[in-house]
Every structure is written in C-alpha cells, then in structure tokens.
C-alpha cells in the first residue's frame, strides 16, 4: 500500500487541469496521443465548452527515478464554481491535491475556493504553477499570491508547462515524495467510500469506491451503511482508460465494484460500504454534501412522455447525484418534475445533456431559489416553486438565501463590476488587492439575483478576466412578492415568478412585452397580464390575426400548400395549450432575457 498515491488536481477553470492530466497520462505511457485532445473530458459537451463537468478517475502505473513502482490514482475535477460538490467528493478519495495556478492569470477565486476545500479535507497540497512557457508568465507573483491569498508556503511550488510537458516528470516525482500513502489496513473490517457512480445496462449501478480499510473481491457480501441493503460483489476493478477488472481491491485502492444493483436509489454517493459481518463499522464522515441551490420545473413537451422523462432523470442522477428531483404538477404543463441544481451552469448543462444524450424533448421553467416563508399562522414553509407561494395575506415574512461572493477583477474593470453588482442588489463587504493589477471584492448577494446571468455578465464586463466564487451564508428577510402571469385571463403557473418589490413593475412590463412577441397571434384577442394578488400591474394585448389563408391554390400549388398546412400543424403540436391559448416552449424561459435587458 505504501506504493499507492491518490491525488487530484484542483484549479480555477481554464488553468490547464485537463491538459496537465493528459500530459501525465502520456509521460506514464497510459495513452499515446499527438493531438491536444483532453482524454478525461469524455463528454461532447465538455469538449465543446472547454470545461470538465464530471470528475473521472484514472489509474496510472509509475516507475520512479529510483526504480520503484507506484500506482497513482488521478482524479480529474471540474473547475467551475457550480461544481464544488464534484470536487469535494473527489477530494475525499485522495490524500493529496495538486493546486494548479496559471502563471499568466495568477490565483483566481476558484483557486482559493478549491484550495480551501482541500485544506478542510486534510489533504497535502502541492502548489503547481502552470503555463511557464508563456512569455507573460509571472512566476514570482503567483508564488506571492499563493502565500498571501491561500496561506500556504509556495517556495517549493512546482513549475510546469502542461502544454509542452516540461516539469511534468519532476511533478510526478514530487507526487510520490510529498503526498502521503494511504493509511488503513487490509486485515481490518471493510470500509469503502462511494465517491461516484455510473450506470451500465448490463451490470447495473456501478459505485466508484475508495477502500479505506479491508479488502473487497468478487463473492464478498457487502452492506450499504445508509440503507442496510446487502449485495454480493460480482466484479471489482480499477479505472484504466476503461473499467478494468481485477482480483481484489485493498485498503488504499481506488476502483469500482459491480454487484447487480438494479435500483438507482440504492446507491448514494457519500455512503459507506462495509461488511455485513461487521455491521458496527462506523461510516466515513466529513464529506461535504452540497445542497442544490437552483430549482426549475422540467416537463415533457409531449405529456405522454412523462414516464420516459422519469426514467431518463433517474439514470441521469446516477452519474450526478448532486441533482435532486421530485414529481410536480403544473396546471399549464401537466406532469413533470421539480429539479434542484448546484447553480445555473449546472442546470444548463443538465438540461442540454437530457436533450442530447437522453433524447428528451423538454420544457424547462424559470429557475428559482428556495425561499422560507413564515405564514401568519406561524408556520414556516420552504418554497422552491413560485406557484406554491402562499397568498399575500397568508404571508407574515419571507426570507431569501444570501451568498457571500468573492470577485477578483482587473483594476480597470472595478467600476463596471460594482455597477453590475449593485444592480443585482449586491452589498460590498470588503475590497482587497492581491497584486498591483487586480482587485478582490467581497459582496453579499441575494442568491436569486446571481443565479441567472450574473456570472456571464461579469465575464462580459471584464472581457473574461474576472473570476468569482460564492458560498451560501444563510437566509435574510426580504421584501418579495409573487407575480402571476395571466394569459387570456387564466393564470399560467409555470410563468409566475418571485421578485423584489421594487423591480416588480419594470420586470413585469418587460416580461409581458416579451411574451407578446413570443406567443403567436391567434384568432381572438389575448390579454397578457401581470398581477400581484388581484392587482394588475402590467398588461399588453395580443391582437388577433386577421389573415391566414392560402389565396391561390391551383393545380401546381396543391402539394406545396398541403405541405405548408402540415407544417403549421407540426408547429402547433410543439406548443403547450393553456386554456385556449397556444404558448410556445421558449415563453417559459423568457424571464431570463428580461433580467438581461433590465439591469
């Protein structure tokens, strides 16, 4: 076991994690590539967006300069602010982490956040400065920032270029020298952490495990601590580039097991696997389970596809247990689900993957946060869906989630960043200067204000240079109201939204105007109204269309005209009929665009 090293790479987004991982795999002959393909970013979406979404582990055999053989288990991690959860569970399987910093960018918000996660997890942290081959690399600045902003010594930071490979073999040597081997003994009772899982249609649910003590092999009976379910192990193995079967996994190993687990719900990431012979073995603690912060409704476009969507979601959460979902009914959209995500990017990516990889035709409703409502009857309600908001006279007070955010921006963009943040009800808490070029600003925000487009807009006002990270700090009283949208006099639950009282009217006006353009004209006049309680605060009318006719239809036109009508029919099918009005799918997300235009 003394020859095993379990480690991960943590970094801010774009600081070169995946490239470094590729280089390590090449130098150790795990893969032979020539291109700049990122091997561990397996999903199309990851390659398209240039980000890692899902952490993927890989086992690397390594012979040190002294000629000793090691097994390195490298776990690639995502770098985006939304995916702290993925990072934190990967960390739990490791004894050490490489803290990667881009020499041209310096320490960024997510570098700090990830470094703290690693420090909290008692991991040995090795600072690594990347991209030293670039002419604008500022190595000394980086070292200073690591010491000042993170508080760990950086004298012995490793200098690498993941791109050209320089420094990577030194980095591997440092990994075996500085990261401690796993502790724990093979002859102790079994204790494994489930840090991830995947689904295989032949082998069922496959938990990814880190063995802390004991051994596990085919034929063994295992017990899941959280639900007391017992399974018999069919197969164990480690992560080559594919799942690679082996005889057994022992203390310190990272690998997987298959035990014909059919029910997705049986496998909980963070759960401890023990031996039924030692049922009192204590659960592995301390792994941070983050709460979903952003919620939205997901509905099948075609009401009959509810079951298919349910199955897709169940399969999906196997690979991403940070998503929660439960059944929900909407008067407008029928049966669907309310799903919770870690953040907006997480939501976007999930919806996109459901569409692409799971071929689901879905309508997503406006994202929202969790509100706490105290009713006049003295009851506290947890509300993750505007349509469940109590009526005005039932509400005593409302609390909304508050986050503390750290934004690091170039000095010349401080003005626009402040302006943007104030428009989002941000309260400045502190301002620091990590180096002479940049300013670090701490804000307090209502989470609802930053979930939609704050991050994108921050990037755009700073030409991509700003970085940010945030943490939920608690709940605060807020003056909020629920706005109902009425289409042709009928409230459409999936369009209601919660807004701070002050910006309600402009937001409502803008939304109603947006809907006016999105909902096609119909044969009758359709009033679009926004209302608080019974009071209308915005209104526009969709005028009826007066002319939709095929005037000329002679011998040469018949086929073409029939096809035209068939196309109209197809278009109609993609709409949701609410009351007597056909509403296109895009309408349900139109509030997102409203926010963009208003601030």
């Amino acid at each position: 076991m003394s020859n095993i090293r379990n480690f991960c790479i943590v970094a801010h987004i774009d600081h070169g994690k995946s490239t470094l991982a590729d280089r390590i795999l090449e130098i150790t002959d795990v893969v032979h590539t020539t291109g700049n393909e990122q091997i561990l970013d397996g999903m199309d979406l990851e390659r398209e967006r240039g980000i890692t979404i899902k952490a993927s582990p890989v086992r690397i055999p390594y012979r040190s300069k002294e000629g000793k053989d090691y097994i390195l288990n490298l776990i690639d991690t995502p770098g985006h602010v939304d995916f702290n959860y993925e990072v934190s569970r990967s960390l739990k399987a490791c004894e050490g982490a490489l803290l990667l910093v881009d020499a041209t960018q310096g320490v960024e918000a997510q570098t700090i956040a990830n470094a703290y996660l690693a420090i909290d997890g008692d991991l040995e942290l090795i600072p690594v400065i990347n991209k030293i081959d670039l002419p604008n690399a500022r190595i000394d600045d980086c070292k200073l920032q690591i010491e000042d902003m993170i508080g760990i010594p950086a004298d012995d930071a490793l200098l690498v270029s993941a791109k050209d490979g320089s420094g990577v073999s030194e980095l591997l040597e440092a990994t075996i020298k500085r990261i401690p081997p796993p502790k724990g003994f093979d002859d102790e009772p079994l204790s494994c952490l489930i840090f991830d899982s995947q689904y295989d249609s032949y082998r069922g649910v496959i938990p990814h495990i880190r063995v802390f003590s004991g051994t596990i092999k085919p034929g063994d009976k295992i017990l899941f601590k959280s639900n007391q379910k017992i399974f018999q192990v069919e197969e164990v193995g480690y992560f080559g580039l594919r799942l690679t079967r082996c005889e057994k996994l022992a203390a310190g190993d990272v690998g997987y097991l298959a035990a014909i687990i059919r029910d997705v719900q049986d496998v909980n990431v963070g759960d401890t696997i023990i031996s039924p012979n030692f049922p009192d073995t204590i659960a592995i603690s301390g792994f941070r389970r983050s709460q979903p912060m952003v919620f939205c409704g997901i509905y099948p476009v075609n009401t009959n596809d509810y079951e298919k969507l349910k199955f897709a979601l169940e399969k999906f959460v196997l690979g991403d247990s940070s998503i929660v979902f439960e059944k929900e009914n909407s008067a407008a959209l029928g049966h669907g689900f309310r799903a919770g995500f870690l953040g907006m990017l997480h939501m976007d990516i999930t919806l996109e993957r459901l569409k692409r990889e799971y071929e689901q035709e879905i309508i997503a409703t406006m994202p929202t946060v969790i509100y706490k409502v105290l009713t006049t009857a003295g009851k506290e309600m947890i509300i993750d869906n505007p349509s469940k908001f109590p009526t005005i006279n039932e509400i005593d007070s409302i609390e909304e989630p508050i986050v503390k955010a750290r934004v690091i921006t170039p000095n010349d963009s401080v003005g626009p960043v402040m302006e943007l943040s104030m428009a989002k009800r941000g309260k400045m808490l502190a301002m620091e200067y990590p180096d002479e070029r940049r300013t670090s600003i701490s804000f307090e925000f209502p989470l609802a204000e930053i979930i939609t487009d704050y991050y994108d807009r921050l990037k755009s006002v700073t030409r991509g240079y700003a970085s940010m990270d945030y943490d939920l700090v608690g709940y605060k009283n807020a003056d909020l109201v629920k706005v109902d949208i009425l289409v042709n006099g009928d409230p459409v639950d999936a369009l209601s939204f919660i807004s701070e009282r002050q910006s309600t009217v402009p937001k409502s006006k803008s939304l109603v105007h947006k809907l006016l353009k999105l909902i096609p004209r119909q044969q009758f006049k359709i009033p679009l109204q926004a209302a608080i309680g019974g009071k209308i605060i915005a209104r526009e009318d969709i005028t009826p269309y007066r002319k939709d006719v095929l005037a000329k239809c002679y011998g040469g036109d018949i086929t073409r005209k029939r096809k035209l009508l068939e196309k109209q029919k197809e278009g109609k099918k993609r709409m949701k009929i609410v009351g007597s009005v056909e509403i296109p799918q895009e309408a349900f997300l139109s509030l997102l665009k409203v926010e963009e235009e208003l601030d």
Partner: protein
Amino acid sequence: MIPNYIDSLLKEARKYLGVKFDTIYLGGGTASLLNNNVPRLMNCLKINFDLASILEATIEANPDSITVNFLNMAISSGFNRISIGVQSFNDYELENVGRIHSSTQAINAIKHAKKAGFKKISADLILGLPGQTIESLKRSIEVLICLDVNHISTYCLSIEEGTLLSKNIPTNLPTEEDQVKLYEYAQEMMYNNNLIQYEISNFAKPGYECLHNINYWHGGEYIGLGPAAASHLNGKRFKNKDDLFAYLTDPTGQIDEDEQLDLKRKAAEEIILRLRLLKEGANIKMLEERFGYRNIKEIFTRIDKLVSINSLTFDGVSYRLPKNKVLVSNPILTDILGD
C-alpha cells in the same frame, strides 16, 4: 425558341395519348407571347387528342400583349374563355408594383376580347396594393362590372422574398387590417352585383365559374405540360423540373417530385380542397362513397368538432367554410389534417 418549345410541349403531350379531357388551360406565364404559335399548338393537340367534347378552353393574357389579332387567333383556335391580368384600374397602383400596362390598355383588352367573341371573360384584381384605398378598389370593381366581366379573381398582394418589392417595401402598403377591410369590401360589392364567391379567391356570375379550376378543387385529375408543370394522374401527383433548357432537350424526362398519398391523407387533402368551394362545399355522401366511411371516420370527428365551434358549417348534406372565416381558414384547415 418558341417553336422549339411548342415541339417539346407536343412531345410531352404524346406521353398521354388516349387520355380524355373536359377543359384546357393555356397559362402560367404569359400565354399571349406565344402569338401565332397558339394555332399550331392547338392544331397539333387536335390531331393527337379528341378535343370535340371540350367544355372550356381558357387562355391567359396580360393587357399589354393583347392585340385584336391575338384575340381572333385564340378564338379561331378553339378558346372560349380568357383570363386577363388586370390587377387594378389605377395607374398609380399599377406603376407602384412595376406593372407595364396602363388602365386604358386593360379596359381596351377587355372590350376587344368581348368583340372577338369571348363569352367567358375573367379579370384578376390585386388587393392591398401600395396606395390602394377602398375608394380606388371600388372604382376598379365598378369598371369591371360596367364592362360586364363575368368572372373576377382577387388576390391579396404578397411580397415574396427575393423580389424587387421585398428589398424596397413601399411605405404606403396597406396594413393587414386594411387588407381585411379591402377584402370584405370587395366581397360585399361583388355579392351586390351577383358575382358569387364560389371559391376563396374567385367570384363569378352563375354559370361562369371556371370549370378547369373547379376540377382542381374537386381533387380531380389533370395533366400539366411544360417545365414546372404539375399533374395529377392515376392517384399520383407529380411535377416537372423547373428547368426550361433541360425541358427543351428532354421534355418527357423531367418528372421531379412525385407522391402518392395514402387514403387518409388523400381524403384530408381532398376535403381541404373542396372546402375552398364556398358555395358547393364538401358533400358528406360523396366523401363516404369515395373514401369509405370507416377510413375517414377520424377526419369526420375532427370536422364535426370544427362545426361545433362554428369554424365550419354543416347543413346535413355538405360541410362548408363560412364566408367570414375565409381569411382565417388556414388554422381551420390544419385542424382537419391528421397527425
């Protein structure tokens, strides 16, 4: 070039030897440009087909190319109906949309056509021309009525993408609301003058309806000759390629799209076409006999729903599209189509 084209038409026509016709329509483009090739074309057709029982033979012409000579030639070749592209009797409106004829030419064309012996004369009018008002439309229709034109087709101006007009949209283009008013005004004025709206875009004195076109709206069969011409034969709809030069070299090998609908879609198509005939409508008995009640039961269910919301009418014999729904007929017709 034109003689070659006539040769090609005849070559293509010979593909269909033995087929019997009730009507002929020479149009689609400007037939009046054919000039003295018209008699040659008709003579050759007469040699190959039995045209003795032809009920109606229409020739299409634009006012600027109509001469007394052309009209006489058309009559002696056997044509008994003429369709004239009048568009408007307001020179300002005509100029605005780039028509090369004047209102005087249009009036003369109609007068000469009558004199030459045409009993059935049709004129096209465009609604929604830039600058057009109810007043100017009223005058255009008045002129037609005074000239005793017994068939009028009206179309709303549609600005097609890629045309000159679409790049330079006139500011005085009537709004959709104005177009609706123009249309409703025309509808009423024609009605008051015994021009019956027998189809969505066509008005005629009783007995002067266009038989050739009615066949289209009955879902009937026909043969189209020439590039881009469409045919409906033996249950199949097909169309020639839109390539004049290819047509000239190989007039019989141009079939491009062809489609044979299954019974249900065929029935839906025919009902949609028949509903265009506002007066006649779609006769339920006839539909049942043609398609079999069981095969089109679901279509009837959809139609009955439309009747229940007054989008269609039913008098126990036929379904009809009510006059006041003509302008919003597309969504009604799409509801008839199956999934």
